[in-house]
């Protein structure tokens, strides 16, 4: 991985953000402002109810500041604004005006000097509800006589009617699906369910709002995109944008949960404006679980192939149960189509997607944005198909994958581009050698209580959402790069770092272009919407490819300015000068080509520019990437099923990733291993079922009953191999693509395929819990007995 020609990229450095190990790093929930009040939120106990009245009188008598529906603007908005306005569905207000649509929906809020007094005031709020019938299931929800969550919503500025709780629909066809199935010798048709889960980002959603003297506000909040929060708050509260400042602050995990403006952010703002005092709102975990969940997916998949394994047709019918708000179901349906269409060459494609409202917690993006949800059906179906064809699953994949030179529309049908780098074959071939694929035996040959199996699955994610032509999603980034008077460099960007090291990569990119040592580049917090230019959001695995692409552009412009100044000093032309890193000096230096001993340090040049009043060596870029190259992933997962307890262990895994140039080797590995742990959670234990009688989560909001993996379930250090494909993405900064979301896409699929290989049972609904496993094993036994 180490590349000699680079000075920073691909090199292993300690993490820059050292505050994270000393306790000094400040997260939104750590912001303490003198005199600030603490806020708490009153939430609906019912999944669906009309709000007859809200009485704040008694609560206000305690001296607390209270807000309910009358205290918040009427504007109906969508908290996620990355789709173009015409494609943005809007169905919510800051607090509900007429009815609550899910248990845990905010109804009123209180701010007081301490959290305790705020809670006491909260207890005094009287809300009169009229309970309405609630729906928790998509089939139920789509019936014509079922209770409706909405009669209308807005699409852009257009009012549209909602019927049968269907939030939106997306149908896409390529070529002739009927012809495709006619040509097929073998057809597989199955239905799969991937469950909704809770993101369980470690920091609960938090906001601090300070009202300023000029009527403006300053905000610290958990978000993946400070500019979108600013624009939305401006619209909602009718405050000009120059008076709103959203601070970029370290995020304690998000995985999509803070991709939109958090629901509590405008609540906190409304309280602060009313109180004329700083207000802090940190969600208790029990509230946070009722705030967001990942999109589940039901998929009816039908695929066809010729005897030789050539695919002829792929048909997917998907239903997504979105819960009580449509945050971004429309682009989600588009992306699912894209993830599906761009995995294999189906030739003839039909896709029918429906998003359906229910009275559950609203769903939003989660790492992969639907890719893990559709990958599970596709990669299972491919294994089923391989078995029917009598073909090796790897051979079938190699024959049909969408790869280099192929058209690709990962981000949905409006964003098409050509794949220019692809490590799929290398990963499948090398990975199979490492896991010992040739020694893999069918489940029928396995005996004993403990059974092992190996499964493969592959997936991808786009790096950003750019295409040759702008699509339905806004996509551009910006950055300022500045050489300081001592030759050190500042990188200023609105880009967020989710923990994957995006800021470290940004620093590396600037270091690489300007030949400045990595430790002389600063990329610190303390920047905000006022000091940064627009960056759409750190989502869609776009941090490195798009965000750091903008850093590279800015750094290249800065290099030009630098060489122009240097040329004046050397009385030469810029093109006759050389810029290199002098590690001994710990500085970048410039010299006339062929005369290295005549060097001047970049510090000297910058200092001269300052003393002589030439100006600052700085540039601000704005960059739209015109591609969103796929980063590919392949997992070879080994499982060990205990047929007596139903428990599944992971003794071994080979993880292969194709990110083009690997910018940050250790964190790159960390991203993949972390995603693996999340993916096994999805495959094995995570779920958030509802009690449909009460409309509450069965875990009641407590993580005691929402398990995620701990240290003990992961394979041992030596049994995890993470390896890169050797590719170079010509359109990416220094050849790089992304990794973060790709890494999750195929984990649960490889797990499911491995389970099949171990016990010969195909599971169609995730998670494959020990209880489900035992039940399935018993059914299998019974069937066998009957046959005998």
């Amino acid at each position, binding site marked *: 991985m180490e590349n000699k020609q680079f000075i920073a990229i691909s090199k292993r450095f300690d993490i820059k953000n050292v505050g994270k190990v000393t306790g000094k790093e400040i997260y939104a929930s750590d912001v303490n402002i003198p005199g600030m009040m603490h806020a708490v939120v009153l939430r609906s106990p019912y999944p669906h109810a009309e709000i007859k009245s809200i009485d704040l009188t008694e609560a206000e008598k305690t001296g607390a500041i209270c807000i309910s529906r009358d205290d918040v603007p009427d504007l109906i908005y969508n908290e996620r604004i990355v789709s173009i306005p015409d494609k943005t569905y809007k169905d919510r207000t800051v607090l509900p005006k007429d009815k609550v649509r899910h248990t845990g929906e905010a109804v009123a809020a209180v701010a007081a000097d301490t959290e305790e007094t705020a809670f006491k005031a909260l207890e005094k709020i009287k809300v009169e509800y009229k309970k309405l019938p609630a729906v928790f299931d998509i089939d139920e929800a789509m019936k014509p006589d079922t209770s409706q969550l909405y009669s209308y919503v807005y699409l852009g500025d257009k009012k549209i009617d909602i019927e049968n709780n269907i939030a939106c629909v997306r149908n896409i066809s390529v070529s002739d699906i009927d012809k495709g199935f006619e040509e097929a010798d073998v057809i597989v048709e199955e239905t799969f369910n991937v469950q909704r889960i809770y993101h369980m980002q470690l920091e609960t959603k938090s906001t601090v709002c300070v009202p300023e003297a000029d009527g403006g506000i300053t905000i610290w909040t958990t978000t993946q995109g400070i500019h979108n929060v600013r624009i939305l708050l401006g619209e909602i509260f009718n405050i000009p944008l120059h008076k709103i400042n959203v601070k970029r602050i370290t995020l304690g995990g998000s995985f999509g949960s803070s991709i939109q403006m958090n629901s509590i952010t405008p609540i906190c703002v409304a309280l602060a404006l009313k109180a004329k005092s700083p207000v802090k709102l940190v969600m208790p975990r029990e509230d946070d679980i009722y705030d967001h969940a990942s999109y589940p997916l039901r998929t009816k998949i039908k695929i066809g192939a010729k005897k030789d394994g050539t695919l002829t047709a792929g048909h997917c019918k998907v239903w997504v149960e979105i819960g009580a708000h449509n945050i971004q179901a429309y682009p989600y349906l588009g992306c699912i189509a894209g993830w599906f269409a761009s995995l294999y060459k189906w030739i003839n494609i039909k896709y029918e997607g429906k998003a359906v409202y229910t009275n559950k917690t609203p769903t939003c993006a989660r790492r992969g944005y639907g890719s893990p949800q559709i990958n599970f059906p596709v990669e299972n179906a491919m294994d089923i198909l391989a078995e029917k064809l009598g073909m090796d699953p790897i051979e079938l994949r190699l024959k049909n994958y969408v790869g280099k030179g192929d058209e690709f529309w990962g981000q949905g049908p409006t964003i098409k581009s050509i794949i220019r780098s692809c490590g799929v074959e290398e990963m499948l071939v090398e990975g199979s050698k490492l896991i010992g694929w040739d020694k893999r035996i069918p489940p029928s040959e396995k005996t004993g209580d403990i059974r092992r199996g190996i499964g493969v699955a592959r997936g991808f994610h786009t790096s950003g959402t750019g295409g040759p032509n702008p699509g339905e999603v806004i996509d551009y980034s910006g950055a300022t790069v500045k050489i300081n008077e001592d030759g050190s460099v500042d990188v200023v960007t609105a880009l967020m770092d989710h923990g994957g090291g995006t800021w470290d990569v940004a620093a590396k990119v600037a270091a690489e272009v300007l030949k400045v040592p990595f430790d002389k580049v600063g990329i610190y917090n303390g920047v905000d919407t006022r000091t940064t230019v627009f960056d759409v959001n750190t989502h869609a695995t776009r941090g490195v490819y798009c965000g750091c692409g903008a850093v590279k552009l800015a750094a290249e412009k800065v290099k030009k300015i630098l060489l122009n100044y240097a040329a004046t000093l050397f009385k030469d032309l810029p093109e006759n000068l050389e810029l290199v890193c002098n590690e001994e000096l710990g500085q970048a230096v410039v010299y006339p080509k062929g005369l290295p001993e005549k060097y001047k340090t970049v510090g000297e040049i910058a200092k001269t520019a300052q003393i002589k009043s030439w100006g600052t060596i700085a540039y601000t870029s704005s960059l739209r990437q015109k591609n969103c190259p796929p980063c590919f992933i392949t997992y070879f997962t080994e499982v060990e099923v205990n047929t007596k307890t139903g428990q599944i262990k992971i003794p071994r895994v080979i993880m292969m990733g194709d990110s083009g140039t690997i910018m940050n080797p250790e964190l790159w590995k960390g991203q993949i291993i*972390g995603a693996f742990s999340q993916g096994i959670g999805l495959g094995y234990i995570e779920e958030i079922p509802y009690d449909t009688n009460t409309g509450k989560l069965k875990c009641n909001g407590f993580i005691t009953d929402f398990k995620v993996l701990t240290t003990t379930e992961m394979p041992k250090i030596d049994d995890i191999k993470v390896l890169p494909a050797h590719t170079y993405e010509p359109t990416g900064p220094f050849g790089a693509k992304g990794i973060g979301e790709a890494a999750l896409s195929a984990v649960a699929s490889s797990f499911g395929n491995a389970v099949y290989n171990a016990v010969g049972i195909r599971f169609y609904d995730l998670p494959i819990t020990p209880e489900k496993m035992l039940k399935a094993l018993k059914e299998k036994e019974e069937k066998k007995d009957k046959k005998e």
Partner: protein
Amino acid sequence: MKKAEIEFTVNGKKRTLFVKTNELLINVLRNDLNLTGTKYACGIGECGACTVLLEGRPVLSCLTLAVDVNGKNITTIEGISKDGFDPVQKSFLKNAAVQCGFCTPGMILMAKSLLKENPNPTEDEIRDYLRGNICRCTGYTQIIKAVKECANNHNQDK
């Protein structure tokens, strides 16, 4: 609610405070002493993010009453190295055992405590010791590696 006076040592400094008798240690640390390195992530003893050392032993500050630490010694993440970085902190930075960093203070304090009890733990012992600390980002492997590396270095130091 009645308030009580408590006197305790935090990161080597004597502190005297008036706290409500039902106040939790986590709130006193975070709100009164501005030691925000101690994190809240569940409040019910399920995640380990709020871990601090009480007389050198890990406790969950979200389940500890502030009045119960009267007269005692507390170490938070802010107090584990006087200058520069402690070997465990260094190892976390080097091994990319830190992603979002929200679980990190708790993890590092647990690791410190483990290494004190058992200077050369096996991989299984490390896993077992850290099993109550949730990390949603890393998948734990690099954390375990970071601790293991300290263990070995620790031994070489001696």
